């Protein structure tokens, strides 16, 4: 695409796909950038390939995943498909909407009229002793392998943590014929009682609630050992995982594993939105930072919006609704539809959004992550630079008042992942040590390129689209 698109969308998950389809329907020239080789995002990863029988059986993934191929098929049939750029990494977005992408080693910059960030979620990194040992992965990683490569873990292995994905993946393994594993559920005692007040809200989406309980049931019925209220998980092994230890009730447990799959819910993937920078707020219920957005997904920067889990965790159904709303807003902002028409078309979408979000309070309360105060000093917080919680605490004691100061001193967040793995933890450690709410402690300032760019690629950067745009204005 040579001329600047009306709407550039970053991320081809549910929000991005829905926005692309809706945007194209409203007459917008849409570009859709995504790092993966196939559309679908993490939740519908490799949906086309799986539906085509190339990997694991589609049935193993459950009813939700079955919606993936349909959404992708709608996208493929839409005019938006012409602007789809897979295997493309976004490394820059600034307040003038200058968007930098790189595909097959060729970097380009352009300036779309509107940008929609639909970068979705990442699994919440929860540091524990030994979590950098080879053989420790996330549940999402293993699920992605099952979807994209038809691979399942070989025993002995365990799933460990808390959150809907834990049982979802366990159930998928069972459906695929794998039962030789253990579930270490770290959800603390008493969470259901705390979550109960949210039940009436969740009941508006009984479907989802029953689905969750059903999964748990299915895993147990299959004979998979499920240990509940597990605490103090630690990974052991020399160069690779050999066993995992934990507390279960009054027992000290030990399990030989070659793979340990961790999960502690998901948080917005905010690296791009922080790097702009968009204004972010602390979401106390979800214990994460998210961009501050209006009801259409608009951020505080003109022409940049966010839809889907990247703007706050809501799940894929909420994401598609938010994507469509953002597309309506883009069409209105670019003069394609009147305000009244936008609002009229938005009404049923908002109703869908409300239903989709009904269970959030329950899920957020039930699966809230463990407090970081208990994090041991020796545990690595920043995986890239191998900075420990103790080093972060020492930096704070030396006068570092904010995450960027800690970053400067310790190099936490300066490695190639740019704080994707440690940002939340460091913000929370600073907030805790200083007795501040996390938003007062702040976040890392993310710096472009948000993913490393080889010098040779930067030297060959194609800036012509931006030059043309500036000449034209």
């Amino acid at each position, binding site marked *: 695409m040579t001329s600047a698109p009306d709407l550039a969308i970053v991320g081809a998950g549910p929000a991005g796909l829905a926005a692309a389809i809706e945007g194209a329907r409203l007459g917008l020239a849409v570009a859709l950038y995504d790092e993966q080789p196939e559309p679908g995002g993490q939740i519908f990863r490799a949906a086309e390939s799986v539906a085509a029988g190339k990997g694991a059986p589609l049935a193993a993934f459950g009813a939700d995943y079955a919606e993936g191929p349909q959404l992708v098929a709608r996208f493929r049939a839409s005019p938006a498909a012409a602007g789809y750029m897979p295997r493309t990494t976004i490394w820059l977005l600034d307040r003038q909407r200058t968007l930098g992408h790189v595909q097959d080693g060729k970097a380009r910059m352009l300036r779309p009229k509107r940008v929609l960030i639909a970068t979705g979620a*990442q699994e919440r990194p929860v540091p524990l002793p030994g979590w950098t040992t080879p053989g420790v992965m996330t549940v999402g990683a293993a699920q992605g392998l099952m979807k994209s490569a038809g691979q399942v873990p070989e025993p002995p292995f365990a799933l460990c943590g808390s959150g809907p994905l834990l049982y979802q993946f366990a159930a998928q393994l069972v459906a695929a014929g794998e039962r030789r594993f253990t579930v270490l559920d770290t959800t603390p005692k008493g969470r259901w009682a705390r979550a109960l007040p949210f039940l009436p809200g969740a009941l508006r989406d009984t479907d989802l609630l029953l689905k969750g309980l059903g999964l748990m049931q299915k895993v147990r019925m299959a004979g998979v050992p499920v240990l509940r209220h597990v605490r103090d998980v630690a990974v052991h092994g020399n160069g690779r995982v050999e066993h995992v230890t934990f507390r279960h009730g009054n027992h000290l447990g030990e399990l030989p594993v070659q793979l340990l799959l961790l999960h502690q819910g998901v948080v917005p993937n905010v690296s791009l939105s922080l790097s702009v920078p968009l204004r972010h707020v602390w979401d106390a219920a979800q214990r994460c930072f998210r961009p501050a957005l209006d009801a259409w997904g608009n951020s505080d920067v003109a022409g940049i919006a966010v839809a889907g889990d990247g703007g706050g965790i809501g799940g894929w159904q909420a994401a598609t609704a938010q994507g469509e709303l953002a597309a309506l807003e883009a069409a209105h902002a670019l003069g394609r539809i009147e305000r009244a028409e936008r609002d009229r078309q938005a009404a049923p979408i908002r109703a869908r959004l409300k239903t989709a979000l009904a269970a959030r309070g329950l899920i957020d309360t039930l699966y809230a992550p463990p407090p970081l105060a208990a994090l041991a000093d020796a545990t690595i917080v920043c995986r890239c630079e191998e900075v420990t919680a103790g080093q972060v605490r020492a930096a704070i004691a030396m006068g570092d008042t904010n995450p960027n100061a800690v970053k400067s001193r310790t190099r936490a967040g300066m490695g190639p992942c740019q704080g994707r793995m440690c940002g939340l933890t460091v913000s929370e450690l600073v907030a805790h040590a200083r007795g501040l709410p996390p938003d007062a402690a702040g976040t890392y300032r993310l710096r472009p390129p948000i993913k490393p760019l080889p010098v040779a690629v930067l030297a060959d950067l194609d800036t012509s689209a931006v030059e043309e745009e500036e000449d034209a204005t």
Partner: protein
Amino acid sequence: MFRTLRPAAQAEAVTITYEGRPLSVPQGISIAAALLGAGEMVCKSMPTSGADRAPYCLMGACFDCQVLVDEQPTPVQACLTPVRPGLAVRRVPRPTPVPEGVAHD
């Protein structure tokens, strides 16, 4: 480490090398999936401790699966890079440390 479901239905295999050793892996999957399927997982040695590191998130966020491919001087994310016939994959070595420098007092 990971086994492939329904191997009969697998697409044809391609041969890549990892640390010079040939591996036969399914076409169309990522380098990370290929390594894990072949029972290999070490991608890099950490610059700080020298410890081995293997894929963690497999969604492009953690950078633990950085590997060197062919003659390219800079690493790629193994989870986002597909295999192709003849691809030579190597671990990212630990860079030579900078000496402590002129001691200051």
